């Protein structure tokens, strides 16, 4: 509940859990430096014919760099390449340097499936970092399950999925939503909510969870719930409705180009988010989106997610500096970009714990993997292949960054099939 972003036990906790993690992985604890490939003969670590040689291992990156989704997925590609570069510099995975084969999903879901198959069958990659929208993930899922691949998926999403062949490094809906609603009810004394979203599965599922939580758990009121087609650019009518209903909280899950239109028109209609009420709480606007919206149009809004670029911990300071060094000083890092950065690292840790690149031992070693150097702090892989992570609320400033105003005291358990919220 503290306004201070450096919660005092963050560091001590990290160190303690780091130690716990080290003792849980005797292999790592006994190693002074990077692993040597010669200690792990290729025949031992690669029994299934993956693209692993004595000094190299190949992984795939599968994102859209052309088409509509390129705007969102570019950051993920950058973060994954940064992580892979850092892993290589620190000695690679089981002493092997990572090589990348990058494929373009081209914002087209069948293309994603086709390229996934190419990466797994033809290139025999040891793992894939990729996908962004739920639609693309649903398209590649059967491919990964059929050919037994491993996908690291970075986006916060609606939940309702759990595959042995996917690690979800973003938050599922309940992790992202519930903590934010509790916070706004408690800290801002919110009594009434207006739910608003783009019309597809993620906002609809998320708002369903939000409505259940608001009405059943918090006992508060939802005064409106609305959806607008993807790409909608005129929000004046709904803004008038909001003015009429006077909700304490506008809960907005608008995505893509609509976002820009929504916040510009909200400001033009005289709704000032820097005032006490109404509170605008969103789960869909990261620092990436603010680039397009313009900081001055969204200043004062609250966002609820697990990572903000402004997080004040040493991991994150190093990460932001490295990211800017690699991709330019004016690059911004949003929640998904950070989650994409986790993928290669979690894979490396799991492979080294398993002592093998093969998928089946990897599946067994993944749950319980801890990553203490995560920019967001500490994360751990849950049995259900999602991550334990903290949830934070940030307030938008006019320079396009968020100021962290709240973070959950403990890690929030991922619950992709929440009971009572269906």
């Amino acid at each position, binding site marked *: 509940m503290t306004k201070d972003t450096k919660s005092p036990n963050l560091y001590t906790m990290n160190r303690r859990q780091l130690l716990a993690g080290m003792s849980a992985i005797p292999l790592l604890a006994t190693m002074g430096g990077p692993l040597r490939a010669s200690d792990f003969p290729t025949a031992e670590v690669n029994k299934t014919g993956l693209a692993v040689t004595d000094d190299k291992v190949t992984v795939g990156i599968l994102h859209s760099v052309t*088409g509509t989704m390129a705007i969102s997925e570019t950051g993920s590609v950058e973060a994954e390449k940064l992580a892979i570069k850092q892993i290589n510099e620190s000695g690679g995975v089981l002493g092997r340097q990572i090589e990348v084969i990058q494929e373009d999903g081209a914002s087209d879901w069948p293309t994603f499936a086709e390229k996934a198959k190419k990466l797994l069958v033809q290139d025999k990659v040891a793992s894939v970092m990729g996908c962004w929208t739920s639609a693309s993930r649903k398209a590649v899922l059967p491919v990964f399950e059929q050919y037994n691949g491993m996908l690291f998926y970075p986006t916060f999403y609606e939940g309702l999925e759990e595959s042995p062949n996917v690690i979800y490094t973003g938050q599922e809906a309940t992790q992202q939503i519930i903590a934010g609603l509790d916070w706004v009810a408690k800290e801002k004394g919110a009594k009434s909510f207006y739910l608003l979203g783009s019309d597809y599965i993620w906002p609809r599922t998320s708002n369903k969870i939000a409505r259940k939580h608001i009405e059943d758990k918090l006992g508060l009121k939802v005064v409106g719930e609305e959806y607008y*087609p993807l*790409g909608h650019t*005129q929000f004046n009518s709904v803004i008038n409705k909001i003015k009429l209903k006077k909700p304490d909280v506008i809960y907005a899950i608008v995505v893509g180009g609509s976002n820009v239109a929504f916040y*510009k028109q909200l400001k*033009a209609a005289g709704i000032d988010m820097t005032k006490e009420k109404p509170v605008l709480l969103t789960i869909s606007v990261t620092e990436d989106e603010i680039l397009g919206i313009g900081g001055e149009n969204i200043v004062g809004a609250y966002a609820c997610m697990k990572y903000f670029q402004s997080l004040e911990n040493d991991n994150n300071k190093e990460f932001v500096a490295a990211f800017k060094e690699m991709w330019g000083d004016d690059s911004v890092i949003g929640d998904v970009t950070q989650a994409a950065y986790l993928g290669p690292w979690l894979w490396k840790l799991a492979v080294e714990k398993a002592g093998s690149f093969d998928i089946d031992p990897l599946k067994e070693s993944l749950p319980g993997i801890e990553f203490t150097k995560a920019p967001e702090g500490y994360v751990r892989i849950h049995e259900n292949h999602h991550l334990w992570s903290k949830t934070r609320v940030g307030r938008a400033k006019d320079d396009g960054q968020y100021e962290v105003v709240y973070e959950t005291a403990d890690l929030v358990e991922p619950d992709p099939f929440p009971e009572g919220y269906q």
Partner: protein
Amino acid sequence: MIGDYTYYEFSSILAMQAFAGLILFSVFVMMALGLAIIFGQMGVINMAHGEFMILGAYVTYFTSIFFEHYLPSLFGIYFFLAMILAFIVSGALGMFVEWAMIRHLYKRPLDTLLATWGLSLILQQFYRSVFGAREVGVTLPEYLLGSISLTDIIEVPINGLFVMGLTLLITFGVWFLMYRSGWGKKVRAVIQNRVMAGAVGINTKMVDRMTFGLGCGIAGVAGSAFTMIGSTGPTAGQLYIVDTFLVVVFGGAASLLGTIASAFTISQAQSTMEFFMSGSMAKVLTLLTVVGILMLRPQGLFALKIRR
């Protein structure tokens, strides 16, 4: 009392809702005018219309950056210069495209649809490669932001007023050009009878090129103005294209008056329905209504009475 609201609140909201409808109307007219000129006057289906708009938006973005860095004292007026530049750049690109591509396809109208669709993909990828895949934020002068409060409930968005004024100006300009100037007379002559117009000494090729350029230029201005209310990114043009075609086809392809009437009908229907139901449902109902009317009147609301 109406429901939970006082008459005062209710009438205020009604007024604001009417104003929201008018803004939507202006936006539609602005989007559709350029297309109506090209589609209506030349019979070319320009699927790349949205990309010409976004070119205008990018021009605005770069003008704002230029002024921010080199002429910060004149930042307040950059927007007007940006609109003129947007008109010139989009118009020039339009004339080039007409010369390089469209003029070879006048006899094959369906192929122009494919060719311009391809052009729109090329332009999108060009923007993405050159300007970056991410959306850019255009900084506006202070006086274009915010709203004017008339009462404690009624607030009039300034950008909306600006778009309305600009739409009026452009509509009047187009009307003057098409119906009161010598050039407009030539354009109309070419539409009515190309061979005859050529025979009396009108350079029909030049008229085509200028008409196409004018349509694209207006798209550029529209794109420039829309940086106030929407996003600027490589694919943002796609957000407008469906509504634009809807307005033009519904209005009757060959009629500018029809375009305006149809923009008014669709915008009012949509913003009224949006108030009483969810946005997605409002859109569905609007589309259903348009489809229904087009089934009864395939030529659209207004049609030119010309001998075929």
